[in-house]
């Protein structure tokens, strides 16, 4: 789909001066005034059919003989996933959203050839005002996209785009003028904390690995992003793989490791593909291989695909998987930085952490510290998903409030519904209610109030989400993903799930909540790895902030959000039903009966609680009601 490496390099880049010369050559060949059409081709937009849009452009441009006038570029994820397929036209930075192949001929004839803007494809704010430039759109304006922002300029399959932006200059600076110890110091000074969720100081980890005894050491990229709802790492790896590789090579130099690994989920085929292309091109240019940039430093990278286990994202489990074993964690009396793959010192960091490293070396630790809060420097990429208007990937400085993320950037809750909670940190994290919306997001603050940063998943929930069901959902996930090695996790999490299943089925008993808390305490204290130790978090945080909802399930056999199937029922108000028959026709199990023009009834024995009748009943009748515990379930806002 994309042109391969256009500039076949005959000779590897030998030095810093060499690199700058090549960069200059690339820039000179590029005409910044020339029309460039960039199309987001991350997996999210591909699901919207962005490949068809790209092909439509290519076909039409070829047909009209416009190749000399227009450059096509297929880029990584832009982040505004709710409005895919995103097309940005340079040099004016005209941003078209929700583009379909049918729109392409018009875009070419109106915008490319005649310079006219097509209004209907523009972003419209809540006042009806149209915004032309991507950087004016509130979703982007309030972010600080130091790591993620380059995605839109880069074709991941073309290293020249990365070089044109200044790529690999940090590496050349490091290799030509800094000792490994100086690099470690700079990263420590910047206070770069692990973006995978642990929040541990990357610089300190690097130092530990560097000082550990042994000649052979490894550096690893953890791209096993397993938290459901989080896909930041995928978009970085798909969209700008060189940023991660550059960080990894710098890390290898600093630590004294000549071998790097990228452990990537096999569920990310596009990321794997782009990674392989990037590695090949990096090798051609000599950024990976022997005597890199004439420094005498050798480094190579191997890609290792995961095989579908959430727990293998845990650092010791990941290293076990690289060895070809099952991904089971081990107790960390000795840290993996000292004894990792094949018992050699191994430094593991998250994708986002590695991608931040070149920026720190380029612009300095002080620059990095100037962003964010005192103990959490820099930015964090979050995946803002769930019941939110502007679903997508947002990069914000540490210290921004949850309210700003969800409402100002995220555009609030769709359908006029009420915000209920936001879940952060994936299955290891917790939920935060409305009263916490004004806390400043950083590693320590989130932990303090009962959740955690995690890898960056941020799932927004509204009043139609049942918090007991959410806790049950996470325990279900964790029971499935638990490796089974240690009893507290294997048995304890399973027991907690059994109790929650009973509560959601309407069989909750007095004492259940106390039992949950007791088991949670044991699991937290005694589990072998972080999966088990943090497994109780969703339960504990929902108990802390939404205990009433649990009590309603247990005492009143009522699900206030109207979700738990055993606790809800649908019925037809005979006063409002006009007998139009729409619900009868649509019921998948034929549970509704009634004559035309006469009130219909639902046979409760047959009803599977699918909710179709409520959905299809005409709004002006509104005859179908959802009940729970004998009372109607009240939901504000449009259906």
């Amino acid at each position, binding site marked *: 789909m994309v042109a391969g490496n256009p500039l076949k390099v005959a000779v590897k880049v030998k030095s810093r001066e060499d690199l700058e010369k090549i960069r200059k050559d690339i820039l000179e060949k590029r005409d910044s005034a020339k029309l460039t059409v960039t199309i987001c081709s991350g*997996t999210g937009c591909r699901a919207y059919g962005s490949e068809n849009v790209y092909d439509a452009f290519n076909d039409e441009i070829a047909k009209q003989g416009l190749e000399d006038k227009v450059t096509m570029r297929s880029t990584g994820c832009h982040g505004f996933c709710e409005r895919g397929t995103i097309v940005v036209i340079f040099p004016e930075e005209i941003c078209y959203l929700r583009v379909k192949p049918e729109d392409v001929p018009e875009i070419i004839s109106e915008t490319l050839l005649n310079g006219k803007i097509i209004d209907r494809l523009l972003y419209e704010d809540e006042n009806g005002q149209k915004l032309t430039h991507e950087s004016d759109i509130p979703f982007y304006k309030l972010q600080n996209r130091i790591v993620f922002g380059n995605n839109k300029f880069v074709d991941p399959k073309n290293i020249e785009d990365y070089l044109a932006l200044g790529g690999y200059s940090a590496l050349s600076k490091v290799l030509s003028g800094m000792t490994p110890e100086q690099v470690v110091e700079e990263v420590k000074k910047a206070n770069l904390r692990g973006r995978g969720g642990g929040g541990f100081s990357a610089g300190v980890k690097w130092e530990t690995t560097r000082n550990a005894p042994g000649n052979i050491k490894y550096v690893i990229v953890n791209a096993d992003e397993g938290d459901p709802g989080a896909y930041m790492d995928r978009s970085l790896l798909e969209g700008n793989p060189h940023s991660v590789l550059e960080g990894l090579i710098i890390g290898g130099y600093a630590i004294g490791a000549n071998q790097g690994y990228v452990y990537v989920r096999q569920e990310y085929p596009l990321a794997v593909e782009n990674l392989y292309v990037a590695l090949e091109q990096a090798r051609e240019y000599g950024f990976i291989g022997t005597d890199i940039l004439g420094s005498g430093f050798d480094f190579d990278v191997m890609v290792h695909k995961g095989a579908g286990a959430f727990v293998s994202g845990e650092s010791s489990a990941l290293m076990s998987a690289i060895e070809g074993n099952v991904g089971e964690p081990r107790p960390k009396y000795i840290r993996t930085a000292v004894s990792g793959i094949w018992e050699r010192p191994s430094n593991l960091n998250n994708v986002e952490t590695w991608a931040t490293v070149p920026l720190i070396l380029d612009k300095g630790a002080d620059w990095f510290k100037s962003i964010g809060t005192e103990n959490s420097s820099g930015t964090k990429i979050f995946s803002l998903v769930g019941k939110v208007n502007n679903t997508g990937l947002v990069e914000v400085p540490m210290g921004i409030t949850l309210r700003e993320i969800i409402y100002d950037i995220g555009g609030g809750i769709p359908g006029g519904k009420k915000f209920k909670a936001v879940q952060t940190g994936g299955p290891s994290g917790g939920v935060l209610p409305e009263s916490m919306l004004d806390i400043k997001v950083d590693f320590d603050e989130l932990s303090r109030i009962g959740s955690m940063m995690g890898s960056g998943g941020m799932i927004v929930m509204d009043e139609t989400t049942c918090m007991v069901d959410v806790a049950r959902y996470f325990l279900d996930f964790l029971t499935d993903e638990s490796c089974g090695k240690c009893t507290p996790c294997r048995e304890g999490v399973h027991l907690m799930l059994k109790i929650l299943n009973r509560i959601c089925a309407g069989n909750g008993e007095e004492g259940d909540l106390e039992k949950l808390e007791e088991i949670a305490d044991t699991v937290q204290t005694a589990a072998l790895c972080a999966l088990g130790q943090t497994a109780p978090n969703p339960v504990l945080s929902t108990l802390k902030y939404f205990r009433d909802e649990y009590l309603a399930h247990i005492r009143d056999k009522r699900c206030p959000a109207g979700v738990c199937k055993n606790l809800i029922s649908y019925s037809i108000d005979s006063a409002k039903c006009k007998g139009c028959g729409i619900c009868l026709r649509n019921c998948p199990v034929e549970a509704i009966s009634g004559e035309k023009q006469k009130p219909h009834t639902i046979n409760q024995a047959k009803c599977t609680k699918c909710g179709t009748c409520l959905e299809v009943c005409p709004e002006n009748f509104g005859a179908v009601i959802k009940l729970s515990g004998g009372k109607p379930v009240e939901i504000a806002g449009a259906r």
Partner: protein
Amino acid sequence: MREGAVDYIVKPYNLNVLEESIQKALGPVQAEIKARKDEDKIITGPDIPLSVPENIRSESSSSALIQTLLAIQAQNNYLPEDALIWVSRQLAVPLTRIYNVATFYKAFSLKPQGRHLVSVCMGTACHVREAPRLLDKVTDTLQISPGETTRDLQFSLTTVNCLGCCALGPVMMIDDKYYSNPSIEELKGLFESLRLEKEAV
């Protein structure tokens, strides 16, 4: 029969009748496997790409185990027993350990999967957008539960924990195509057309 049994035999058993009945039940599966072999979709033995890069061989060839199994799974859509025996010899890894690995990771299947893989996303964002309801629609239409394959070996259903297309939630995939909250009619149409496609080939 209502629970899904294909046939029943009355006592006293006649071995010929029993054999015929078994053939009838296995018929569609055997036809599908044969079709795949004809289409070169199944490889065994020395044809298996042994993904052991040079600089790892000296270290520990067993490190290549998972990558090799992934390659076999991708090609055959399951892990045939004779392929595993061959891998065990090549990489000097005990068969028991291969089974340990194959049953630990979700990407592997020891039984042939359907020609088309139907994956329903049950990630948190999709869950909050009523993914369980979508799953009900799919199980009702295909008449199988997650982890099962249709009797004609055409469709396997699985749930996945996140496809990373949260803006389309609740989302599902059939092979490599994405569908956002399809209706039961749309699902019926999609599965039917895929079945017909195979018959046409």
